[in-house]
C-alpha cells in the first residue's frame, strides 16, 4: 500500500491526488473526503495550529491501522495549516481500493480518527475576536464506532 501524508499551508489539486492513487491501475475505486471552511456571516479567518512531527507520526499510525483493517492500494492525507478563509479547503483524505466498500469505510474511519486523534487546533476570528473552536463530543462518538 502506498501512502502520502502532507501537512502544508498551500491548497491541493484533487485531480492530481486521485490520479496518483490510480496510476498503478490496481484500484477501481477511490473514496475521497474534503473538509471546507464554511461561509458564515461573521467568520473572517480560520487559523490552524498543529504539533509538528507528532501530526505526521499520528496520521501515519492511523493510515497503518486502516491498511490493516481493509485491503487498500493507497491512502493520501493532506491537512492544511496556517490561515484559511471561508470557502477554503482544509483537509483531503483519499483512499484507493479494489473494492468500493473498503475505500468508503477506510476513508470514513480516517476522517473520524483525524478529528479525534491528530493534533490540530482551529482558532476562529469573528468580528475581530479570536476564539478556539471547541472539540465536539459527536466526533468522539463517531470514532468509537470503529473500536
Amino acid at each position, binding site marked *: 500500500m502506498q501512502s502520502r501524508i502532507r501537512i502544508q499551508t498551500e491548497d491541493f489539486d484533487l485531480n492530481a491526488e486521485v490520479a496518483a492513487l490510480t496510476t498503478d491501475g490496481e484500484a477501481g475505486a477511490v473514496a475521497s473526503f474534503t473538509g471546507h471552511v464554511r461561509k458564515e456571516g461573521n467568520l473572517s479567518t480560520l487559523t490552524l495550529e498543529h504539533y509538528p512531527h507528532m501530526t505526521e507520526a499520528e496520521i501515519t499510525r492511523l493510515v497503518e491501522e486502516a491498511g490493516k483493517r481493509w485491503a487498500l492500494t493507497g491512502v493520501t492525507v493532506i*491537512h492544511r495549516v496556517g490561515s484559511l478563509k471561508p470557502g477554503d479547503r482544509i483537509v483531503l483524505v483519499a483512499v484507493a481500493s479494489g473494492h468500493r466498500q473498503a475505500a468508503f469505510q477506510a476513508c470514513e474511519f480516517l476522517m473520524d480518527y483525524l478529528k479525534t486523534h491528530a*493534533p490540530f487546533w482551529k482558532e476562529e476570528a469573528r468580528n475581530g475576536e479570536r476564539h478556539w473552536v471547541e472539540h465536539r463530543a459527536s466526533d468522539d462518538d463517531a470514532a468509537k464506532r470503529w473500536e
Partner: protein
Amino acid sequence: MNLLYFAWVRQKIGKGEEMLNLPAGDVASLIAHLKSLGSGYEDAFADLSRIRIAVNQRHAGLDAPVGPNDEIAFFPPVTGG
C-alpha cells in the same frame, strides 16, 4: 524534560516550549509541579478534563511515566479535520 504547549494552553502559559530539569515521575506529578510555577500554569491546568497529553509524540494519560529525556506536550482536545 522538554515541555510543549499548544493552542490555549500555550496562550495561558505564555510560551510554546520550555526545558525543565525535574526528577522522573508521572504526568500527574509533573502537572502538580507546573501549577506551582505561576498563575498562568494554574489557569491552564485548572480543569484537567480539558487537557490532553502526549509523551514522545504519542497520546498518553495522567499516569504515564516521564523522565528527563522525554518530550511531554499539553494541549486541548483536538479540532482538526
